[in-house]
């Protein structure tokens, strides 16, 4: 019954923004035998349902909607003739890079890949993960599910809406549901600040007079069959509801925008080392995971704020994978310098650097753990502070980056680590 093992130089798992940019990056780095596996019936991933504008300002210097941004990459992939299989879901990746996928057309297929690029994206934290007391009625949706219902199916999930969590998808859906005729009462955010972009708070909430309740959360859900009301309370500094502050909001729908999680089930089963902070793979300067020849990019690696950075990162992963299969890199004998994230810096991607393999300038992305005003982003090579840049404000919702120059690392041989941290002065 076992079918013949197919072979491809590079297999890209996922045909969303990361997968497409990775495939194009690999092609442009000289590799021709690339196969993109996409579970949906079309390329583009989550961008197809992100019909709002604001994509591509960095990449194309214009404001595109999600489907338009995706279409540019799809057109490029078409032009290059990148092979893709749609309706094909990867079920397993072995540590020797055999990819097992399933589709209606072909059943189970096994592909021996020279290199694998993980580009599976992320998923939303569901209601259950919050353990909010109350009933479990219809009418509780993650913001992304509601977005799919409204934007792809044309169906209205509810008419009277409360949103928990001020992530960008939640904010975007506040405006979307309002435009489609629903009444959005408020957005409750448990943190004292919003994880969403300022632009979205102004244009999706303020424009429509929708209040943003900071330091508030939903404490109870009423309604046995369909949501009938939610209770919202103020929380203290330890995020516990404050007695006596509960207010009942009659509504038929609760949307949740309470966080995104990289979708790493395949990576975990393959044995890829995952970071407990990002929940994505631990990668080196080539965006290569703990399994040689397996690379990661986009939201499966760490959740991004802007798709432009996903595309940029994915192109790097694609190029690295191409170099790997072309044998341009030796076996993994490179000296790796760890990047230490500390003092407000939650993590960095990548988390190790090889001076031999790094490009002349390496982008290191990170997020901070709180809102910081007038702090400096500092980079130390060993004990030597080589960067010290003041930022007026940094917030957990926005990705930050520093650039490491190869020349500077060469000038600091024998360092045990690189440190990225925030400093008050």
């Amino acid at each position, binding site marked *: 019954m076992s079918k013949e093992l197919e072979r491809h130089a590079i297999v890209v798992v996922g045909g969303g923004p990361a997968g497409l940019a990775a495939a194009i990056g690999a092609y442009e780095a000289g590799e021709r035998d690339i196969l993109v596996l996409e579970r949906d019936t079309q390329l583009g991933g989550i961008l197809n349902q992100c019909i709002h*504008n604001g994509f591509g300002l960095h990449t194309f210097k214009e404001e595109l909607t999600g489907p338009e941004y995706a*279409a540019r990459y799809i057109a490029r992939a078409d032009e290059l003739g990148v092979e893709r299989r749609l309706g094909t879901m990867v079920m397993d990746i072995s540590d020797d890079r055999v990819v097992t996928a399933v589709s209606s057309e072909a059943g189970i297929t096994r592909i021996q890949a020279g290199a694998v690029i993980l580009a599976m994206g992320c998923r939303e934290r569901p209601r259950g993960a919050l353990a909010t007391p109350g009933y479990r009625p219809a009418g509780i949706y993650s913001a992304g599910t509601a977005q799919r219902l409204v934007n792809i199916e044309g169906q209205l999930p509810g008419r009277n809406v409360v949103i928990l969590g001020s992530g960008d998808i939640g904010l975007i859906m506040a405006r979307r549901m309002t435009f489609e005729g629903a009444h959005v009462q408020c957005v409750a955010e448990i943190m004292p600040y919003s994880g969403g972009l*300022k*632009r979205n708070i102004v244009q999706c909430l303020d424009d429509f007079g929708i209040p943003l309740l900071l330091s508030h959360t939903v404490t109870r859900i009423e309604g046995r069959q369909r949501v009938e009301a939610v209770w919202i309370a103020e929380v203290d500094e330890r995020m516990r509801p404050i007695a006596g502050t509960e207010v009942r909001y009659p509504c038929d729908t609760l949307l949740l925008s309470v966080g995104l999680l990289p979708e790493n089930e395949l990576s975990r089963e393959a044995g890829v080392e995952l970071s407990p902070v990002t929940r994505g793979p631990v990668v080196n300067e080539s965006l290569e995971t703990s399994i040689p020849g397996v690379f990661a990019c986009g939201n499966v690696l760490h959740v991004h704020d802007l798709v432009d950075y996903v595309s940029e990162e994915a192109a790097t992963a694609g190029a690295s994978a191409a170099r790997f299969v072309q044998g341009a890199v030796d076996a993994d004998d490179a000296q790796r310098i760890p990047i230490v994230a500390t003092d407000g810096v939650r993590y960095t991607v990548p988390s190790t650097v090889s001076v031999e393999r790094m490009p002349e300038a390496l982008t290191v992305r990170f997020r901070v753990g709180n809102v910081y005003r007038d702090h400096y982003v500092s980079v130390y090579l060993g004990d030597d502070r080589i960067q010290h840049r003041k930022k007026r404000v940094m*917030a957990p919702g926005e990705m930050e980056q520093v650039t490491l120059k190869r020349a500077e690392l060469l000038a600091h041989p024998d360092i045990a680590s690189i440190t990225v941290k925030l400093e008050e002065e």
Partner: protein
Amino acid sequence: MATETRELTCINCPLGCQLTVTLVDGEVTSVAGNTCKRGDTYGRKEVTNPTRIVTTTVPVEGSATERMVSVKTASDVPKGKMFEVVAALKGVTAQAPVAIGDVILANVAGTGVDIIATRNV
């Protein structure tokens, strides 16, 4: 002489400066609270001529796979016209095939701006 002040949040960066825009007889005389030039420009525009791109969807007929096609205003429309733009699309249906940029509804709500498709269906 009518003097008026308006409070708004700048959207250009995460700083989110709280701007105070002063108008005299409808003319902006000052923008305060901004940290950079972009805040000044944004403040002036937002109180005198706020505009937005409106995005939504309309049903599409003749596609085997898609029920809806996403659309947007081809350029900014006055912020106060947003709901009229959406309402004008009620009952509008696109016919597949649709290409990005195809005009779905010309001169929506009298704005002089077309509604165009943002997806190939």
